[in-house]
């Protein structure tokens, strides 16, 4: 495995950056894995689009940004629109089903999953803000490099105190979304 590029995109407040950090932090448990996580906010520190990027690799990582994502997650139509074509062949796109599907077609050789991420978070977990963890659960499926356990540990460490259970539940819900489908 040379490097795997993951891009998590959405709107400010959807917690994509936290999801990125957790993803990156889960790599701590594997001494062989290199990881770099970056983000970009809009020019305003609040609102607007946000994007977190994580690259994992078994070799030192030079360029720290995603060139073509191996895994792309989009929680807004805007982000799918913006990044939907910058996906590597063999990669996957995961988008929320509230908007995704209609006019999006993935590039050649890219799998596309339109999943009820936000809906599950809202309806099953009862907290829409856990959509980021649901999404992470879905991503887990395509990340054999990282142990699901490690991800769970990273979640426990990084989410606000008292919300660990909800977030773990959301994560697992996300995992199931795909194990059910793929």
């Amino acid at each position, binding site marked *: 495995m040379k490097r795997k590029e993951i891009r998590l995109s959405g709107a400010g407040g959807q917690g994509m950056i936290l999801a990125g950090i957790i993803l990156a932090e889960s790599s701590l448990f594997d001494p062989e894995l290199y990881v770099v996580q970056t983000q970009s906010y809009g020019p*305003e*520190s*609040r*609102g607007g689009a946000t994007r977190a990027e994580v690259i994992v690799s078994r070799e030192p990582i030079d360029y720290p940004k995603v060139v073509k994502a191996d895994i792309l997650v989009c929680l807004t139509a805007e982000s799918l629109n913006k990044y939907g074509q910058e996906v590597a062949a063999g990669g996957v796109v995961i988008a929320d089903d509230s908007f995704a599907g209609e006019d999006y077609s993935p590039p050649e050789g890219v799998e596309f999953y339109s999943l009820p991420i936000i809906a599950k978070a809202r309806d099953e977990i009862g907290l829409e803000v856990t959509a980021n963890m649901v999404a992470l659960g879905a991503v887990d499926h395509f990340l054999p490099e990282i142990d699901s356990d490690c991800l769970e540990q990273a979640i426990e460490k990084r989410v606000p105190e008292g919300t660990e259970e909800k977030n773990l539940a959301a994560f697992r819900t996300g995992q199931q979304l795909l194990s059910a489908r793929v």
Partner: protein
Amino acid sequence: MAEDINRYLRQDKLPHIWCPGCGHGTIMANMLRGFARSRLDQDKTVVVSGIGCSGRATGYLDFDTLHVTHGRALTFATGIKMANPELTVIVVTGDGDGAAIGGNHLIHACRRNIDIKVVLFNNSIYGMTAGQFSPMTPTGATATTAPYGNIDQNFDLCELTRSAGATFVARGAAQQPRQLIKIFEKGFAHRGLTFIEAITQCPVNYGRRNKLGGARDMLNWQKEHIINQTKYESLAAEERQDKIPSGILYQDKREEYTERYEKVIASARGSEN
């Protein structure tokens, strides 16, 4: 009926990007209501702001507006007012912008008693940079740079500006919009350095970290703690402890700076003949 403020707003820049429940919008709206009442000329009014969430106000206000470096708005405003004393010059600043890095310019503008209207949005925190303590953060509160509780004491800015020489000093709060409008109306009519501290809430970077609840709770805190000056004075010393007086706290008629400079011009011209 309340004044229409839309004619003073750049409609295409709205909605603003202040957070939900941020008091900055309330202060700005009531500043405009006060401005409307003052009947000053919109085309002859310049608003200058520094950097901070409060500093964003100039982007929304339909005047000549200038958004400068952090803490320095008053210096630019001084140049504008000196250059053209006909202009109404308003400075919008924050408690960090105006009282931390900009503190010197504030006291010197007061000392000169130059006719600039300084509106300081006091939310007790550095909002824009996400929650470091400011010179107005209460002792004991937590902030990202005061994880063990703030040991700094905060200024009483109304005391400070008065003792520096401001000739109109007032304090209002988002929770008391009617008083605020009146303060602004009177403040805009005053000729000389006008200092208005407007207490406002930052639910995101102050309220949340200090477990003060949301915007609504923070407004209720204001309601309980900010009381009219006359009422404040009637209280015993112990009762005053946790109270903050509001209203027009001080007003005076010292000659304004640009007027005094007119005399320099006159005397220089005289001495030439």
